[in-house]
Every structure is written in C-alpha cells, then in structure tokens.
C-alpha cells in the first residue's frame, strides 16, 4: 500500500485461490474472480498467439473504478502468486506503480532472516 494512489492490494495463490496477504480496505475484496480474470486472459491470449503459449508479466485493466494491476510471480511452491493492486485514476502514476510491483515481486524471492545479534 506504499504505492501512491493505491486503493486495494492483495496477494493471491492462483492455483488454490488462497489469499496470502491483503492491504488497505481489501479484506472485503472477493479474490476468486480476480484470479479468474487473470486465468481467463492467459488462456485467451495463449489461444490467440501463434505459438499457443503465453507468459504474462503484467496485466493492466483501466475501468471506471481505477487502474487494476495484476502481476504473476513465479514461486517454487504452490505458485504462481498474483499481486493485485487497484489504483485511483486521478492520484496514481501507472509507470511508478509498475516499478513498485517489480520491486515487490523481486523481494519475494530475496528476503532473508535479519543478521543475528551477537550474544
């Protein structure tokens, strides 16, 4: 929710549909249709492409309710995770938000334990 103009945010495990984290007022958000939106888009784009396969980095939908950003993150287990953020149309910067999401998805794979304090 540090992204300027963010209204909703959640992290979803796409295969099982489990919500791993939420931010802002997203507790009420129904995650299942969000995962379905990305899945259906992936399927349709895969069918439409000449190769028949697809790899989505980011998906951006502009609606009357704001910008909807989807970012699938490949995880070694039970993935992919999907980061979803909804942004205010007037108060947000789409390019900046995408940079934020890239950083977050990079961190998911890098975070380690803080160094232990010498005793």
């Amino acid at each position, binding site marked *: 929710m540090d992204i300027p103009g963010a209204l909703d945010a959640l992290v979803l*495990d796409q*295969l*099982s*549909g*489990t919500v*791993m984290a939420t931010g802002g007022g997203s507790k009420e958000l129904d995650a*299942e249709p969000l995962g379905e939106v990305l*899945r259906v888009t992936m*399927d349709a784009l*895969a*069918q439409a492409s000449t190769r028949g396969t697809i790899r989505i980095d980011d998906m951006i939908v502009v609606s009357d309710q704001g910008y909807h950003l989807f970012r699938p993150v490949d*995880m*070694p*287990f*039970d*993935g992919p*995770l999907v980061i979803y953020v909804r942004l205010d149309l007037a108060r947000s910067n789409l390019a900046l938000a995408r940079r934020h999401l890239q950083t977050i998805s990079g*961190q*998911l*794979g*890098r*975070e*380690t*334990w803080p160094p232990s304090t010498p005793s």
Partner: protein
Amino acid sequence: MAAIHTLLTGLARERATGSLSVTPSGKVFVDDGRVTFLECAGTPTVERLLTARGRLGSPRPDTPRALVDGGTVTKAELQFCVVGAVLDAAYFLLPAPMPTARPKFRPGERHWLGGQWGFEVAWLIRECTRRRAALAQTWPVDELDGVPVTPVARPPAQRVTLSALEWQILVSADQVSTPAELAERLGQPAYTVLLAVRRMGSAGLLTVPRLPLRRRHPPERPEPVPRAAPTVDLSVLAAVKKALEELP
C-alpha cells in the same frame, strides 16, 4: 460426529502449546493456541516440496533459519511453502472424524519448522471451507479423486488449454498413480493437484471410471466444514486435555 476441527478449536480457546496426534497419520502443533504446523500422511511434507525442487540438501538443517542461511531457499519462499503445506494438510485432516483411540497431547512439543509463523484455527477452518466449495464448484463429482489418473486417448475438442500444473499431471500420469500419489511425486500440494484433476475431468480430458452402483445416486458433495465450530464446554475440554496429558 465430532470432527478434528472441533478439538482444535478447543485447543485454540485454551491457548494450549504442544502437539496432538489426531489420527495414526496426522499431527497438529499448537503454540499459545495458534497452529504452527500440521502434518498429514496423505499430503506432501515441506521436506518433500523442497526436495522435489532440489532445494533441500542432506543432512537436513534443523531450524528454518539454518535452512534459509544455507542459501537453498529464501525466507519468503519458505514461508509460502509452510503456509501451503499447512493448508494442504488441514484440508484433509480437519474434517476427518475424531479417532476412536484417544488423541495424545504432548505439552511443549514443537515442530522443527514451527514457531516462526502461526495460523488462527478459525482462519484454517474458513480457508478449508472455501477450498471445499471451490472443488465442488469445479466439478461436483468425486469419482476421480482416489483412482489412477488416466488421460483420454483423444480429447473431446479441437483445441485444449492447460495450466502448467495440468501439463505436469498429464505427463506424469502412468495410469497407476492416484492424484495424491502424483502430488507426492511432483512435490505439489495434494489439494491443487486434486483441483487440477477435477478441472480436467470436467473438461472431458480424463477417463472417469465406471462405477455402476454409485451412478444411481446423485454425485456426492463433500460435506462443508461448519464456519463456526459447535459450542464447546470449556470445562469439559480442560478436563479432557488434563486427562490426555496425564496419560503415560
């Protein structure tokens, strides 16, 4: 009949710490009433999930921290791995009926991966209910759940779209292995494999076994886990827990 989640709800209210062997094959670890780990014989363990991806060397590190410091897995990856394994075990363990043998509670015992992350019992039960509904919504037929996965020779469509996991399942299907066995071999959670098998079943990509006796009945829907656990008399639970602890 009381299910295991009833007992777990009781332990949560008492804020108990220790381990509870619930079936011959299942074990629950709680810390101050929060579930830190769940084991179920039918679902792949965290060790299996890590090994399947070449992320676990031998000898196995004995703390989560040593595992992360060893550099084979990051903290976030391990956390998602643990959440996934716990939810997967909970899905099959929590609705199981209470064992006839008395469950054994060992106060203070901890899992080697437990303690870093705790899960509310109520959240586990809610999530299992949601997963059960999602499975039934995908395909309300359980005939494929326990039988060998057998792809049809010819798909009933000109074009088929598969997820990466569905592809893995079809490639590994040897017409002998059940979904649970494939999950173990692939190092994937049993629930997600089951969900993928049901989806492929509904798409007509798998051979559904002929079970003439079952066919006459409407498809069996899994019984939903109640959202709120039935009211439990705390004094009875305390007495039960005390008696369990005093067992030799």
